[in-house]
């Protein structure tokens, strides 16, 4: 049952092959039995899930079922859930129970889906390995000694281990695509402004974007249909009709122009990863697409620009965690400064503190122009690179990340090596473009991800291209050893 895709589950529910209660119980049991190994779920919401499944079954019986009615999914613990602890992977919010739902959560509730629980993540979404979580690292189901990627590592690992058929995730510099690649699943970061950020705990507001993860592009389309909406509670959300992403999945790729940025195939790219990506591109040629070499000359500047802008925004976004109103508060503060110092020193982990310090420094008097001002200029250059590229091509493809999943601790002591993990994904966040990753091969029994970057609001074309690829390949159907498929 856990091998069904969301598409298959919806079909089975509608045809009454099984009930929502049955599949919900099945996935809850899997999480309870297997997740001690992967640590992908922070909070299991068993009672709420069974209640939601029961309501879904009633709607299904009446034939009034909304799109995702009865489908169990997991939510990244960055989305606020009314009455359910929302930790953001941090000790700071270990005790935080929001009195409101994120718009994304509300959308999923309205679509009749069933929340199984909240997934593990890097603390405040800051990390590429899930090692910064207060709740301990998530293990990659393909290689238990390796990282699942981050920050949405819990969502990605849970899907790979068939603990849920789909999950929500967020992406600030690659946090959907990189874990999707490392865990061998499909994930999509939409255009900035496509999915509401209301109730999604902010890391870097101008870069953060929620998106879906599932095993197939077809399922991602279903989830995105639900997630994407205009929301007047988020001023950066864009008021633009949401297309039916499922409707164009079967379009032909004949004549599709795919840009191959030469900067994405340079030094630092694992040879096996490169081979898998090149093989996939050849597959696209067979599907009728045309490969066009392009250049994104400012790619090399994306990591440094990102590590100024994201920490700068984060340093302000995380100021609210001060022990005054909610969240962690140190014991017996002796004065106000002591309250601030100890609350934040105790509540935040090392990586979060590192980024707050970097951000605070970059915005300081005398440094602003050299760092933040300059980084914003670089951001414009990177955006222009893409605008020019999309004059010539319909989609851009390349590797999602430089190499397959690395071992725990391999980059833990070298922040810069860790930051380079996102070298191919960060540019799209800086430009606000949509990007996705889908399984395209294996290296050393570990999955490799193919990245597809689209033009603004061109998610439908990306999903179409990914779906067509998945019609002629079976990388997305493979399961980690021990996870019977």
């Amino acid at each position, binding site marked *: 049952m856990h091998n069904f895709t969301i598409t298959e589950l919806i079909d089975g529910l509608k045809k009454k092959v099984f009930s929502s209660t049955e599949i919900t119980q099945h996935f809850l049991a899997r999480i309870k039995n297997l997740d001690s190994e992967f640590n992908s779920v922070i909070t299991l919401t068993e009672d709420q899930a069974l209640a939601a499944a029961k309501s879904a079954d009633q709607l299904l019986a009446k034939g009034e079922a909304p799109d995702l009615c009865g489908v169990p999914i997991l939510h990244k613990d960055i989305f606020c859930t009314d009455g359910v602890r929302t930790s953001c992977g941090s000790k700071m919010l270990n005790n935080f129970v929001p*009195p409101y739902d994120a718009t994304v959560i509300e959308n999923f509730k309205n679509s009749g889906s069933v929340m199984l629980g909240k997934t593990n993540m890097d603390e405040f979404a800051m990390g590429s390995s899930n090692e910064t979580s207060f709740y301990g690292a998530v293990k990659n189901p393909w290689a238990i000694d390796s990282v699942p990627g981050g920050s949405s590592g819990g969502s990605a690992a849970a899907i790979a281990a068939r603990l849920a058929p789909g999950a929500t995730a967020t992406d600030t510099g690659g946090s959907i695509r990189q874990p999707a690649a490392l865990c061998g699943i499909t994930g999509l970061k939409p255009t900035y402004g496509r999915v509401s950020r209301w109730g999604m705990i902010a890391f870097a507001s*101008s870069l953060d974007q929620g998106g879906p993860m599932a095993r197939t592009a077809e399922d991602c389309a279903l989830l995105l249909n639900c997630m994407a909406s205009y929301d*007047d*509670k988020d001023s950066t959300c864009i008021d633009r009709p949401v297309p039916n992403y499922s409707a164009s999945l079967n379009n032909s790729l004949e004549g599709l122009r795919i840009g191959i940025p030469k900067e994405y195939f340079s030094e630092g790219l694992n040879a096996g990863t490169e081979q898998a990506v090149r093989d996939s591109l050849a597959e696209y040629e067979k599907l009728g697409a045309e490969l066009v070499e392009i250049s994104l000359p400012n790619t090399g500047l994306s990591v440094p620009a990102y590590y100024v802008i994201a920490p700068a925004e984060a340093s302000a976004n995380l100021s609210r965690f*001060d022990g*005054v*109103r909610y969240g962690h508060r140190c014991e017996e503060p002796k004065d106000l400064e002591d309250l601030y110092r100890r609350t934040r020193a105790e509540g935040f982990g090392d990586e979060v503190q590192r980024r707050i310090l970097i951000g605070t420094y970059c915005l300081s008097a005398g440094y602003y122009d050299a760092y933040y001002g300059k980084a914003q200029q670089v951001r414009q250059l990177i955006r222009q690179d893409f605008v020019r590229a999309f004059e010539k091509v319909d989609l851009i493809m390349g590797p999602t990340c430089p190499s397959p999943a690395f071992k725990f601790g391999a980059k833990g002591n070298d922040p810069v090596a860790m930051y380079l993990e996102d070298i191919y994904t960060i540019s799209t966040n800086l430009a606000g473009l949509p990007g996705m990753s889908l399984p395209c091969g294996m290296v050393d029994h570990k999955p490799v991800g193919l990245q597809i970057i689209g033009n603004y609001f061109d998610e439908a074309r990306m999903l179409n291209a990914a779906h067509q690829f998945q019609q002629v390949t079976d990388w997305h159907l493979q399961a980690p050893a021990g996870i019977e498929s």
Partner: protein
Amino acid sequence: MNWETVIGLEVHVQLATKTKIFSAASTAFGAAPNTQACEIDLAMPGTLPVVNKQAIDYAVMFGLAIDAEIGKTSVFERKNYFYPDLPKGYQTTQLEQPIVGPGVVDIQLDNGDTQSVRIHHAHLEEDAGKSLHEGNFRSGVSGIDLNRAGTPLIEIVSEPDMRNAEEAVAFAKKLHSIVTSLGICDGEMSQGSMRFDVNISIRPQGETKLGTRTETKNLNSFKFMEDAIHLEVERQIDVLEDGGEIIQETRLYNGETKVARSMRSKEEANDYRYFPCPDLLPVVISDEHVAQLRDNLPELPDARQQRFIADYELSQYDATVLSADAATASYFEQAAKKSGNAKLTANWVAGELSACLNAEAINLEQSPVNAEQLAGLIIRIADNTISGKMAKQVFEGIWNGEGNADQIIEKRGLKQVSDSGALEAMVDEVLANNQAMVDDYINTDADKRKKKLGGFMGQIMKASKGQANPQQVSQILAQKLAKML
């Protein structure tokens, strides 16, 4: 040495919007602590600001009123600092691109001179909450009330164009008059609706370079502001004449104890690390919208003053006093139209009514005597039914809720006797009964006789129980005495 004082003002004006600048919580004054703070005002994780369009319009209206450039694109920035009454750890404000650019405010001084004060700019921002420290809260702890957090403010920054306390107060009063006339602020100083920060420096007369300034913050009455300026100017003169140096610092003035103290020096000042708020898009205002606001701008104090002089033949002074705020102006106009006697109405509104309101510390909206009732009283003064002295009694009766003027005149039997036959009889009787006084009058030198009239008047008024029309009595008396000579 002769010193010249240089003063510039920063004025915080709370905008009279129903809801906060970035949330839907109410801005009403005086509610129980923290009952008007929603999840946005509390800076709960994942919450986002949405700008209040009314606040934008109010700021533009102010800009139009002072003939300023309107920022077609204005940008909200984050001003970062930690304080418990600042929930996000930053204040959302404007810096580089404010909504109102340079403008001018004309002020009138007591000697009749007018003078221009240049406005550097005015920007939109959110107010902070309030900290309640020991003495105002439980012993040993501080409390925080976030009802005020997020109340929209415009901060109006003047150029250092004022040279003494009188000019600064005149400027402050003029701003009060403008914002209340526009209806964008309730003008309630005691509730903090307008707060003044005064920048003061001194320099030798004739010097063109500015001296080192201090900033005295958060003055919320014109009187406190005047006293604080005098005190600070004297302090600075003392320091410089003793060979000392002025330190750039922020000072606090206590209006109750009339003592000022240093709060922090420039060295201790925060580095606010301003940067554009990524949660809010730049505010873009179209020319059409500005034109629409301009067309619907309420009458401004200067125009109203001119109209009062032209339409009601008021003196410059009366016109200035009565046109200063919208409530007073509208009260005056209603009463003047109803009574048909603008001059008397002006005297009563600016005199007795205003004195009684001040004595009870209430505003015009709370006045127990409404404009119609005052007009009723004035009609009876003008038609000689009652004397000025009786009118005060009648006013008191209306104030105490005893009814309208005619009812009180009737009830108290206050009608003035103006029947000349009756008055002549009264005068004759008093003259007959006071032969000694009459002889004394006749025997007095002609140029000193006038002084003797008061004695007769007193007797006659007493005989009439105060109801005789004094002007008529005086005329009759003069005629009769003249015949006796």
